[in-house]
């Protein structure tokens, strides 16, 4: 099973359509109660800089957050941006993964998220391929290797 970090990345990066469809599957069997309706807020991003290995606050990001409950299970949906429906769908799916016993649709959710993850990797690889076209190739002119690896050696 995917970790929550992996699952939420797929559900955010794949756009709202997938999350809304999967949340629909969950709610067809067990409707979710809105605990905190979708609303906007901020998340402060802290970064570790690499000169002194210290931490600092880079910037805030605008997010939309939603909290729902299905039975005894709470679900949280947060994503960058202002898409309230997407945030709620994420919360419903999160609650489905927290339900005990697990809902019948969980296997289907997992399969669809895995499928979307593979598609996400394909999209990223296609974009990376375009980026790599701009890589500079160096030919050795005088036999002197000026690569960082050679200098380190």
């Amino acid at each position, binding site marked *: 099973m995917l*970790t*929550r*970090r*992996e699952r*939420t*990345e797929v559900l*955010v*990066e794949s756009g709202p359509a997938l999350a809304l469809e999967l949340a629909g599957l969950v709610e067809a069997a067990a409707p979710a109660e809105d605990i905190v309706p979708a609303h*906007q*807020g*901020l*998340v*402060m*991003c*802290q*970064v*570790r*800089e*690499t*000169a*002194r*290995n*210290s*931490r*600092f*606050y*880079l*910037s*805030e*990001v*605008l*997010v939309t*957050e939603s909290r729902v409950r299905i039975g005894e299970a709470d679900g*949280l949906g*947060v*994503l*960058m*941006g*202002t898409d309230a429906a997407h945030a709620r769908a994420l919360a419903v799916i999160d609650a489905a993964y927290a339900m005990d016993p697990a809902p019948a649709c969980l296997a289907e959710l997992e399969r669809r998220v895995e499928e979307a993850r593979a598609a996400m990797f394909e999209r*990223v690889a296609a974009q*990376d*391929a*375009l*980026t*790599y*076209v*701009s*890589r*500079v*190739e*160096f030919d050795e002119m005088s036999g002197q*290797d*000026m*690569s*960082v*690896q*050679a*200098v*380190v050696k």
Partner: protein
Amino acid sequence: MGYVAVSGGEQAIAASLELLERERVAGGRALDPALIIEAMPHAVEQVQSEGSVWAPEVAAIALKQASGSIEEAVFLVRAYRSTLERLYTSRVIDTGEMHVSRHISAAFKDIEGGQILGATRDYSHRLINFDLSEETDADVRAARAVIDERLDEAAEAFYGVAETTPLDCVPKVCDYLRQIGMIRPVAIDDTEPVDITKTPLFTPAPRSVILQALSRGLTQAVVAIGYAAIRGFGISHPTVGELRRGSVPVTIDAPGTDPSQASADDAYYLGALPVCEVESLIANDEVTETGEHVNALDVGYGLVTGSDESKAIAMSVLDHSLRVDDVRYPTQDQEFVLYHIDGVEATGFISHLKLPHYVTFQSKLDAALRSMNHAEGQKEDGSRAAQL
């Protein structure tokens, strides 16, 4: 001079605002904020960087409302930001996990993963393309199709022959220099950062304050002071060891978990934040604990949201300058740099000068007139005495 009651001021102000709004709508055409994001991404990025909040839709609306004034749009975004609740602080972002779209070094010809130029204007001719004045939506779509086809063909040819490193784990140039001891290893410093959005700026400032202030500083001010530091009003002359542009994942821990115990696998992913990071190398004479002088490289650090490379490089220069904190050079004086690079502070103060200063100015004028009359009186007395 006494205080004067103002009559009709409210009406005049209302009319002034009407005139301003009339200027905005005078063209009779509405601009879709989504189009601003697509067509003017760098302007939107600058508003977000200086506004200190990443919110493209909000920044685009602010630019629209401000009729394209970056200064005004940043003010609007900062004001909106102050109305929102801070829900979470992210897990510590490791820029080593950046998914890079551009990766270059001015220090080494060949770096791991290769010099990846990405999308850059560095090699473009700065000639205005007047054909763009006639460009239609159909032209834009056709141009994209042609470019996509050319890049796809090139990508296919490239992938058959070249080794590639995944672009989400590109090694850092400085790590190699640490291996050979040219950059001193530094232990992890988990001092809790100070947040200048909640704490007034003070000097001497801790490192977290310096970096946050520079990162959200007025872009042109950071670049100008960074330039001054190199040109002769400071001691920094860096080499860009590495410049990388891309996006970093923003994640939060599950609510209620202890951050020191929380697992990265259990975190929530919120999205990808575009950033530009620079590690500048500056030759340094370090004194060891035994008093021995050794040559080493110091690293100046720059990180900004968005893709402004000039700002990130200038930030790295100023990071190094301000660590010296030697007030003989203004670029090394924390108070001089940090108090003057905030866009809202600087433009707010300059802007206030045009607001009524009737009483203070009258006072200055009275004093100047009295002084002038006194001097003239003395001159007249002097010439009368000379005649006698």
